[in-house]
């Protein structure tokens, strides 16, 4: 029989380090907002010759505007391009560049300052929505485990796992933004919502097994019951994350760049979600039961005082 619970300190330390790194990255780099969330410029162009949407996108990418959003009008060869805010010179250069690469431009119009496509509040609103949802989860899980001693702990640990997973996703994207220039978009927002949904679901299944085993083996030690529950549900945890990963990987491989943010957030989320439901939520439960959390919090100020 594996002893998963025995190494609980290690898991919590690993999670702590990863999250701390994420928070440091968020504090230094922040999140790089995509073109949808920020005001920018808008350009309509129509070419003398037929130009495909793909050719235009490639040309924009080669002119360093790979993040531009291109839409075509029904009229052949005429396009709407959403760009980061451009100065008049940059705009002239862009028009010249497009003309050089794709042939003469029949008509073009330019608006220097265009408000964001998606209201800037969307990100903040999503945060609040998730926050309220987390409170709902806390209440429900506490209620669902009300026959257990200390039901509130189950709810709290489930929420910690949820926040853990969301923070890892945010931290990773902040790092990717700072180092590789990845921008967050609506795909990212959707992905974070999905991670939250996945995380809680996974944790609750494991808690449920703990509940069942606690009522069945009333004499066993809490630590042993939690460990056995984790071992018993291990193949289910792995299989469920595998099946979810299959779908997400298929999306990443066959749809490609346009869905990349969503796929990457979910891949990170499925991995951390599985990890947190095995190695964070139940381990915190054991640490709490054994009084280790209380000892840890007493230890903290003493450490702080000595420095």
């Amino acid at each position: 029989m594996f002893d998963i619970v025995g190494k609980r300190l290690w898991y919590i330390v690993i999670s702590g380090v990863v999250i701390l790194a994420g928070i440091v990255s968020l504090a230094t780099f922040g999140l790089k907002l995509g073109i949808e969330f920020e005001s920018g410029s808008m350009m309509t162009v129509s070419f003398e010759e037929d130009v495909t949407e793909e050719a235009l996108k490639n040309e924009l990418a080669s002119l360093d505007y790979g993040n531009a959003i291109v839409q075509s009008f029904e009229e052949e060869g005429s396009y709407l391009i959403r760009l980061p805010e451009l100065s008049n010179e940059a705009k002239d250069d862009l028009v010249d560049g497009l003309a050089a690469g794709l042939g003469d431009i029949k008509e073009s119009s330019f608006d220097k300052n265009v408000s964001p496509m998606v209201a800037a509040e969307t990100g903040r609103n999503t945060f609040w929505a998730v926050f309220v949802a987390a409170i709902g989860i806390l209440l429900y899980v506490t209620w669902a485990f009300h026959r257990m001693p200390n039901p509130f702990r189950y709810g709290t640990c489930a929420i910690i796992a949820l926040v853990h997973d969301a923070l890892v996703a945010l931290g990773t994207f902040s790092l990717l933004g700072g180092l590789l220039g990845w921008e967050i978009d609506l795909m990212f927002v959707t992905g974070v919502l999905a991670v939250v949904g996945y995380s809680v679901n996974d944790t609750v299944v494991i808690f449920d097994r703990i509940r069942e085993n606690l009522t069945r083996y009333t004499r066993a030690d809490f630590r042993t019951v939690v460990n056995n529950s984790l071992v018993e549900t291990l193949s289910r945890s792995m299989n469920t994350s595998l099946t979810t990963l299959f779908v997400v990987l298929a999306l990443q491989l066959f749809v490609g760049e346009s869905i990349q943010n969503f796929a990457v957030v979910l891949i990170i989320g499925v991995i951390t979600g599985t990890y947190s439901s095995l190695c964070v939520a139940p381990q915190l439960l054991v640490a709490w039961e054994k009084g280790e959390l209380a000892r840890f919090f007493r230890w903290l100020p003493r450490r702080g005082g000595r420095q």
Partner: protein
Amino acid sequence: MPRRNTQIFILVLIVFILAGLVVLPFDDGIWLRRGIRLGLDLQGGTHIVYQVDLSSVEPGQEASTVAGVMGVLDNRINPMGVTEPVIQKRGGDRITVELPGRDISDKEKERLSRVVMLEFGELASENETARWENERGRWKPATAIINGEEKALTSQYFEENTYVRQGEMGGVELIFEWDKEGSELSEEITGRLIGQPMAIFEGDEALRGEEGQPYAPVVQSTIVDVGQITGLSFDDATSLSQQLNAGRLPAPLTIIDDEIISPILGEKFVEMSLQAGLIGIILVMLFMIIYYRLSGLLASLALVFYGLLVMALFKLIPVTLTLAGIGGFVLSIGMAVDANILIFERVKEELRAGRTLGAAIEAGFNRAWAAIRDSNVTTFIICGILYWLGSSIVASAPVKGFALTFFIGVAISMFTAIIVTRTLLRLFVGTSLAQRTWLFSPRLGRK
């Protein structure tokens, strides 16, 4: 038990066929002549550019006026049942509106840009100048003096809670309520005009009833708080009421560009993600069959059933699919098999404990139920809160879209993973196939 199971099986089969008739083909439907609705990001739509007329706006107020116009446009688009429109300010005095769908009628576009300011008029005497003239007479704005200031009675004093109802005589009534200042004005004016007609104008035109006659009822009694406009056609009354509630446009708009535009995510996105989704589902099925053998095969059948039912619901409700919605759907596919995995793992445990196959299946389903229930209820809570917040307090369309499809997906998967899989499995218990335990778990077979 077996007879009841057969009945359930037949029922499941009927639902399956009905769902198939609704869904196939994707862009049309044998039954409902309706394809799956797609949002602006997936399907493209109508791109309208409005010019805001700022000529009568005080200098310095331009930016806030345009922002006000955008807010009103947003309010007006909402009741059209349109998902995730894009409204952008373009330069100083233009607004771009993108709406999903190609079939937005000219009438709807006009309604969006209507100022919606109703002015009440009374008959002008011969020596007075008339503001309006029509077959019912010459009219001037109905005014009264409040606190020493002469004010005209207009819809700017309406509370934003107008509604339309079918009156006792069968006519359509638009009910409105005056705010405090409006009540005083109305009391003054209607008290003065008892026995005389009053008309309502929008811009230069009189409001007209169902038969096209100008609206000019005779005032019967003093109107203080609540008034009504009768005789409009139901359609006109409803759109007028919605627009009154959405607020008055602070400046007039004219359409300067109106075109059909391609989806934000590119033409091939839907096709590619459908293909990717299909490949993903096939991978999941292969995994389930290899790992869980016969049960896995049955779970895969249930998964096909799941996909079909979800699509059918998307068409029936109808759900407008956007990127966020697809996100919810994809995640729910991954989780759809979760219930089955939970059950099958449970069945294996019971088989290892030495139960017969039939007993193990029943025990597996019963024991796994609590976990399935609790994990799915938490998912429903998340969806419920996200949907509610996404449509009201912290309005955010992607949050709402995600919550809706995720909810549908998880709800249907509960049905297919439990009822459908169990019914199929029970059909096999009692046949000679059930003797071969390797069909259910490779390791057990080898023992």
